[in-house]
């Protein structure tokens, strides 16, 4: 899940490789008749050099050029990805190392060895070394950054530089999935940097000018080290505009003012689907967002497993997909992260069965249960789901009222978030092992589903201590998923695609883990 503000707090792990070369991915679900959308895996034409790409993304009050706050808003994030290279990125479910050449654990995953790529340079020509990487990791982990949460397992003091190209990273506890954490926006800047608002980067572009809350102009490096890996930069310049309103961003593309607009609404996608001057694009399905009704296992009536199951059977998932996602989404099966390689595809689908829900409640002595679902219109899908559930629950004999919270208050009130019996959640896609640890278990940062059982804690611990090939690691993830499917507090019922709008000429835009903050490194303007 994530917490956007007027489009700000997105931790949106949007689509995998959204290349703006085609239309959206097919998103039929569960046999329902859905609008057909498609995506392409890469640019359909050879890259063309030159030109300026104009793109609009949501900004926020937190806009800054500081590398330590680069994930604060969509527009800052997109800009940061152009200025600072990262150790690695996520493409689909796989890590694609960038500044790191390789990342390997020891036998019990208590230490990880990072080999830094040879030949990487900062924009002033300085060579990028393991010292710079360790400094960046220590700085990101030691400050209140969003990366610090993922890097919390790192022991910065015990970590060291072995040689100019090799780092030994020590962890506080074994973690076989620490490679995924290292692929989460670990921006690298020179060792000794003190002015983080003007930190040098090794990325393909440099910031030429910036006006807070308005625009930034970036120019391509002619000496970009990464060109040897294949790819851009192909553009001469990129101009990024900070536009809070999604409708205004779309209008900007329609009027020819922008070439690309991130964060477009589903209703606009439907309205513009046949506009020949636009391309409506979305993410591959593994990076769609999950919609859930979150039940707190420590609050009545969800201390009783029957209440949990009753809510799950009361939800008409097909109807949610048709109405809430306008048919563009797909059904989810009470587990996050569908279509990721870590996801257990054997999890069965729970049918919509209001009679069974009624019986479960009656058997548990909860025949006249009344529920209030906390929600907000913070992001599209939450309030709509809650409203739809009110009617669906009636069929199961559950009286539900909607408690709508102002968008600005919804996620800032953490105490309430962690104690509310029933609320809506929109989980933005992120690598499943990280996501499960972030939201479930006694050590979770945001345990919305309340207290964790020793069994769940044991499974999560086992997941982190599993070292080895992907199949072995996936099995450990499946065990956690199975437990949550049976006894967890999240009823994950639908998946919703994030959407962007682009001119047909724009090619080579890649999500690389973050659809709403795409990577424009290899973007170009086709004819």
């Amino acid at each position, binding site marked *: 899940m994530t917490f956007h503000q007027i489009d700000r707090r997105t931790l949106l792990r949007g689509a995998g490789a959204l290349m703006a070369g085609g239309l959206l991915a097919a998103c039929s679900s569960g046999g329902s008749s859905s609008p057909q959308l498609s995506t392409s895996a890469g640019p359909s034409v050879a890259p063309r050099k030159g030109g300026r790409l104009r793109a609009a993304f949501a900004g926020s009050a937190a806009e800054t050029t500081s590398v330590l706050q680069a994930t604060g808003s969509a527009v800052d994030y997109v800009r940061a990805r152009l200025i600072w290279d990262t150790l690695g990125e996520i493409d689909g479910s796989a890590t694609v190392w960038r500044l790191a050449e390789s990342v390997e654990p020891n036998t019990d995953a208590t230490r990880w060895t990072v080999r830094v790529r040879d030949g990487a340079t900062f924009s002033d020509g300085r060579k990028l070394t393991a010292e710079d990487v360790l400094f960046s990791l220590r700085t990101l982990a030691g400050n*209140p950054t969003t990366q610090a949460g993922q890097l919390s397992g790192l022991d910065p003091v015990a970590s060291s530089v072995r040689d100019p190209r090799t780092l030994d990273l020590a962890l506080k506890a074994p973690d076989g999935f620490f490679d995924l954490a290292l692929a989460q926006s670990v921006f690298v800047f020179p060792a000794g940097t003190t002015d983080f608002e003007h930190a040098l980067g090794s990325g393909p572009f440099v910031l030429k000018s910036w006006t807070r809350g308005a625009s930034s102009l970036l120019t391509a490096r002619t000496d970009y080290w990464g060109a040897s890996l294949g790819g851009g930069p192909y553009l001469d310049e990129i101009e990024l505009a900070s536009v809070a309103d999604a409708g205004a961003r779309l209008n900007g593309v329609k009027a020819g003012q922008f070439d690309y607009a991130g964060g477009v609404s589903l209703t606009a996608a439907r309205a513009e689907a046949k506009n020949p001057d636009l391309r409506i694009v979305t993410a591959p399905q593994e990076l769609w967002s999950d919609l859930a009704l979150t039940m707190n296992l420590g609050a009545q009536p969800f201390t009783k497993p029957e209440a949990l199951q009753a809510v799950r059977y009361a939800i008409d998932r097909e109807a949610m997909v048709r109405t809430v996602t306008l048919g563009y989404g797909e059904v989810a099966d009470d587990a996050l992260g569908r279509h990721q390689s870590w996801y257990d595809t054997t999890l069965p689908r729970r049918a919509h069965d209001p009679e069974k829900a009624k019986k479960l409640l009656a058997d548990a002595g909860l025949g006249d249960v009344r529920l209030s679902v906390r929600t907000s219109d913070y992001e599209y899908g939450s309030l709509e789901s809650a409203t739809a559930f009110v009617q669906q629950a009636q069929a199961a004999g559950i009286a539900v009222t909607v408690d709508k919270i102002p968008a600005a208050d919804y996620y800032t009130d953490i105490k309430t978030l962690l104690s509310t019996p029933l609320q809506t959640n929109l989980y933005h896609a992120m690598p499943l092992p990280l996501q499960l640890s972030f939201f479930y278990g006694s050590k979770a940062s945001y345990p919305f589903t309340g207290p964790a059982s020793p069994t769940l804690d044991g499974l999560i611990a086992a997941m982190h201590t599993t070292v080895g090939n992907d199949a072995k690691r996936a099995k450990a993830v499946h065990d956690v998923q199975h437990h949550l499917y049976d006894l967890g507090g999240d009823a994950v019922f639908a998946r919703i695609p994030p959407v962007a709008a682009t001119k047909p000429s724009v090619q080579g835009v890649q999500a690389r883990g973050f659809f709403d903050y795409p990577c424009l490194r290899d973007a170009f303007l086709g004819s």
Partner: protein
Amino acid sequence: MRGVPRLVRGVPRLLRRALRASAGAVGTLLAASALVFATTALAPGDAATARLAGRAGPEQIAVLRHQLGLDDPPWTRYLHWLWHALHGDLGTSYANGTPVSQLVAERAGNSLLLGAVTALLLVPLGVGLGLWAGLRAGRAADRVVSLGTLTLVSLPEFVVGTLLVLLFAVGLGWLPAVSVPAAGQSPFTQPELLVLPVLTLLSVSLAQNVRLVRSGVIEAAGSDAVLAARLGGVPEHRVVLRWILPAAVVPAVPVLARYLAYLLGGTLVAESLFGYPGLATALVNATASRDTPVVLGIALLVAGLTVTLNLAADALAALLNPAARRAH
């Protein structure tokens, strides 16, 4: 001591009124700051949770909260802020670390420009059209103006703005759909960014002002003084300038002043619709981010403007209207 009351009595009446009004204004601003601070303090969450909730762990939020001084009691923070504010330091933004005075100045400049351009068109157009229609009450010209203004008044700003975007930006491609300045530029250097927001703001405000002035003109035109002047053979243009116009404009002045304060304080709908970087969107974003220093900075500026413009409007109305002047 016997001389003091005499001295006080000797102060010109206008100066005394100005001093009284200024003291009232300072009190109003102080009360506004306390109220705004209390409101932000009572809102759920704080700047640390607004920035990091859901994306970093509780430990990082606690560190940020400590860095921002948010673990101090609210009254301590308010007094700390007030002490510095009285010394000209409005603090730094919790959200991005920039001095509040710099942030507010950037946005205020943009809002001021948008408001001033709108006002410069609004006042002459509002008075002129209202006068023109009022003097032709019941005739075809008046009916056209009345119908036009009635239509515009009934359309919300966002509808007018959207229609303008669809027509002039998306349809004809003459003007930008989004009024975001290019990097290193501002609306001062890119005046084309102002056209659609100004037209949007004008649409509703002009209609309201035309209708206000028109009704004032009709009322004044039927007064005994105007009738007497006309019977006495005073030329019509003199009747209009001497009797009708002042009588029609005086009631419109306070309304105009309030509208100007609204314009200068930022206009949320127009700013949001066009992405214009003004004060109103900055205030909304700062509120959502629990960025108390910025909220206070903008609130005080807007409150100060409102108070000043209302005082100016009262003074202007008093000058234009002898009866009101005597009443004061």
